[in-house]
């Protein structure tokens, strides 16, 4: 086995070659058009990013079968590990099994999480004290932008991991509807992450929102970031179409929509959002890229022909951007909320309270999610009459979200609760999401938002919703399905340490951020005035040898807040590393878990762990309700072959 036989390595080589082809096309094009200087960095990096991604996909082999189709050959789908290579190599190349792809998504998600979290740890350290210690303002801004997009990529990959691994198993399907498209949708993320890392080297300083006119100027790193996001979005769109078709058309006998495990409903709502709204973020970054490379006047108000003709408008960008980026928040949290609803009944040994209400509340959140984007723009200078409708629609989100909270409480009420790590994380998620949820109406209300808009209060609110809605549930899911995926149990003690480090640290971080926000700390600023919010100790100077000598820097109130937030941030980062160690270490040393350690009713727990290549040897039949825990004699799925002769 050589290094080049690994798909990932071939892909990376392909990305380099593709990027160079993109450069060459620009140079040749400009020479043909008679320019003196054939090199044009904006155009070269834009085209290089696109061709580099294509090069990766060709190199890794994600399009091999499609090229065969084009010439009229239709190779069958290969199952099992690649021939003549060790079994582990299938994780590093194109594989069409949804379980392999799910694990690929999951591991890549953790890698992106470490990139995003790493950036956060760096700039948090800078913020701990006032004054600039070791970061330049440009690098600080680049880091917050990369933190944002790497974390969002990690979340989308994590959603992809759960969707790919769990949805076909839960609905009882063989695999996804389009396995080749599934592999393609995963692999396009890898060159995208490479582009994001490249943009870190080349700098871009607008923060993750790319607001023009700042993003239409400045260093060329923007182009790499734009196409990174474009490709991640493309992955979302293709993946969500696959999920919807799988869920709607591949359910076995008896698996009616209202008998699907509740996570599937969450993924249906998520996929509808991903499939549609994602197009607009792709369009937004494409327009920015074209504006930078060709001077096309979408967003820059000063690029006009004559006074009579219309110019660009930066507000337009904010509309298009938030039309995706607000629904995106629901793309992140809906799967997580589904996981909470999935895990609670197992450890409460009680039916899920209000199954249909939860299912419908996911769809309602998705629907209302389309109508609220303007609440990000209360201070942007758009038409004031738009504020009230957007405020009302935003407050409306609290209704379906409240349905979920009451359902969780109803499920827990009177249950025989046990508290292994997945249950702890599900409960932690509820507590954290509550912090995020309660701070939401304050920001949705125009009168208060005008004061809080650009402060750390928003940062605290946002991180609480995302940690409560995605990160905690995702970790719960990792611990919960780990024995199913690997056949071994993670280390329970380390899992509990992870939880008890991370949860209080997160409360402290989030509430701390809201507090410094109300004291006047603005977001996306590399430095702040030490006296912000008032001083606790004033600086002390003494006169020595005729000169003033500083013997104590003093301590500001906001500064104390930042020190606490930074310590909490480091604690969270350390606890996540502990989890990653636990998950990898337990692959070898974990106790054998058996088929169904949690006594779950879901179909994927009724088959061996780890799951064989073909999950269900015969089609399953659904004969009962999914969450009838504690009801004597109730069955959900029947694994015996269905009686023949009905077709």
């Amino acid at each position, binding site marked *: 086995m050589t290094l080049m036989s690994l798909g990932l390595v071939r892909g990376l080589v392909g990305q380099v070659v593709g990027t160079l082809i993109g450069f060459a096309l620009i140079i040749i094009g400009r020479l043909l058009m008679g320019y003196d200087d054939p090199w044009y960095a904006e155009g070269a990096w834009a085209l290089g990013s696109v061709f580099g991604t294509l090069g990766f996909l060709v190199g890794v082999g994600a399009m091999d079968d499609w090229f065969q189709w084009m010439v*009229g050959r239709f190779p069958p789908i290969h199952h099992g590990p690649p021939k003549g290579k060790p079994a582990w190599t299938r994780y590093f190349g194109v594989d069409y099994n949804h379980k392999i792809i799910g694990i690929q998504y999951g591991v890549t998600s953790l890698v992106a999480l470490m990139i995003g979290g790493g950036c956060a740890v760096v700039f948090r350290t800078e913020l701990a004290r006032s004054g600039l210690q070791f970061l330049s303002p440009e690098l600080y801004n680049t880091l917050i932008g990369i933190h944002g997009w790497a974390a969002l990529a990690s979340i989308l990959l994590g959603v992809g991991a759960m969707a790919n691994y769990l949805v076909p198993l839960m609905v009882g399907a063989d695999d996804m*509807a389009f396995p080749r498209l599934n592999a393609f949708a995963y692999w396009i993320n890898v060159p995208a992450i490479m582009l994001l890392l490249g943009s870190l080297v080349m700098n871009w300083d607008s923060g993750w929102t790319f607001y023009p006119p700042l993003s239409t100027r400045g260093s060329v790193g923007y182009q790499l970031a734009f196409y990174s996001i474009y490709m991640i979005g493309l992955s979302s769109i293709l993946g969500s179409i696959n999920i919807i078709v799988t869920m709607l058309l591949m359910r076995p*006998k008896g698996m009616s929509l209202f008998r699907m495990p509740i996570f599937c409903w969450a993924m249906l709502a998520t996929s509808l959002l991903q499939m549609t709204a994602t*197009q607009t973020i792709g369009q937004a970054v494409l327009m920015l890229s074209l504006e930078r490379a060709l*001077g096309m*006047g*979408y967003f820059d108000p000063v690029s006009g022909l004559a006074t009579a*003709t219309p110019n660009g408008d930066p507000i337009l960008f904010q509309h298009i951007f938030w039309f995706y980026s607000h629904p995106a928040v629901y793309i992140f949290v809906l799967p997580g909320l589904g996981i909470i609803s999935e895990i609670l009944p197992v450890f409460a040994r009680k039916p899920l309270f209000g199954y249909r209400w939860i299912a419908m509340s996911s769809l309602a959140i998705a629907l209302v999610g389309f109508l609220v984007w303007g609440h990000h723009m209360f201070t942007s200078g758009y038409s004031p009459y738009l504020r009230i409708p957007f405020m009302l629609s935003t407050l409306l989100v609290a209704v379906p979200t409240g349905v979920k909270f009451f359902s969780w409480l109803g499920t827990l009420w009177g249950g025989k609760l046990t508290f292994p790590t997945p249950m702890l994380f599900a409960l932690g998620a509820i507590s954290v999401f509550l912090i995020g949820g309660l701070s939401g109406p304050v920001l949705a209300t125009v009168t208060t938002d005008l004061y809080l808009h650009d402060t750390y209060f928003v940062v605290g609110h946002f991180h609480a919703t995302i940690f409560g809605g995605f990160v905690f549930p995702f970790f719960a899911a990792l611990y919960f399905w780990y024995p199913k995926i690997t056949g071994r149990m993670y280390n329970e003690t380390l899992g509990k340490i992870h939880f008890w480090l991370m949860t209080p640290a997160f409360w402290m971080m989030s509430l701390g951020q809201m507090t410094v926000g109300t004291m006047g700390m603005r977001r996306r600023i590399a430095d702040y005035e030490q006296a912000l919010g008032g001083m606790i100790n004033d600086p002390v100077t003494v006169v020595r040898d005729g000169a003033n000598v500083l013997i104590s820097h003093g301590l500001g109130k906001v500064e104390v807040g930042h020190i606490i937030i930074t310590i909490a941030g480091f604690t969270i980062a350390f606890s996540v590393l502990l989890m990653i160690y636990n998950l990898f270490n337990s692959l070898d040393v974990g106790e054998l878990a058996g088929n169904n350690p949690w006594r779950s009713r879901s179909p994927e727990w009724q088959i061996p762990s780890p799951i064989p290549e073909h999950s269900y040897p015969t089609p399953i039949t659904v004969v009962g309700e999914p969450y009838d825990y504690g009801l004597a004699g109730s069955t959900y799925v029947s694994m015996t072959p269905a009686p023949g002769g009905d077709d």
Partner: protein
Amino acid sequence: MSAHVTAAHGAAHGAGAHEDSHGDGAHSYAIHLQHSRLGLWLFFISEIFLFGALLAARFYLWRDDHGAIVRPELDQVVGLIVTGVLLLSSWSMNMAETGMEYDDRRTFSIGMISTFILGSIFLVGVMIFEWGLIPFPGYTAHLKPWDGAFGAIVFGMTGIHALHVLSGLIFIAIVWRLGRLGHYSGEQHWGVEACAIYWHYVDLVWIFFYPAIYLIGHAVHH
């Protein structure tokens, strides 16, 4: 209905037989046809948001100082001709698909070739006369991409649409060739169907784009 089909699908292929889309038997084909159709239509729904964002940008930006909707002065003859050509191509594409449904190879072939030619005329027409990308004697194009919001939107909308036309042309070429090689039949021709509805979709998008670019609002000199 779907549950029934999928269960039968599993039964038809025995234990764990993950078949391929071009495998065995009419039954497997019918199931994959159902999947592929839904997948393609979901993709169309998705793309509505792409074209919708462009239309929204057009109506947002193309306004004068009083908020009235304006448009650039473009060559109406060019616009009318390329639009007419594209509409005709949808008719020839329908001819090709109907031909294949009746196993009429000759009609299929004529329809596909006509659609390819008409689609190419549309694309080249836009490239020469609307973009000025290829020099044409005695003709100068109106706008450059960097000409304010007019240039940006005209090139953005026609550019994204032209990319779809180009991919449609490649799709047509591949399907035509596979059809000649005998890969489709009256009963099984998802490739032809997909190609045809994709082409109609791209055509339909232009029916919204054409008035948005050429007709709506009063013309402003640039």
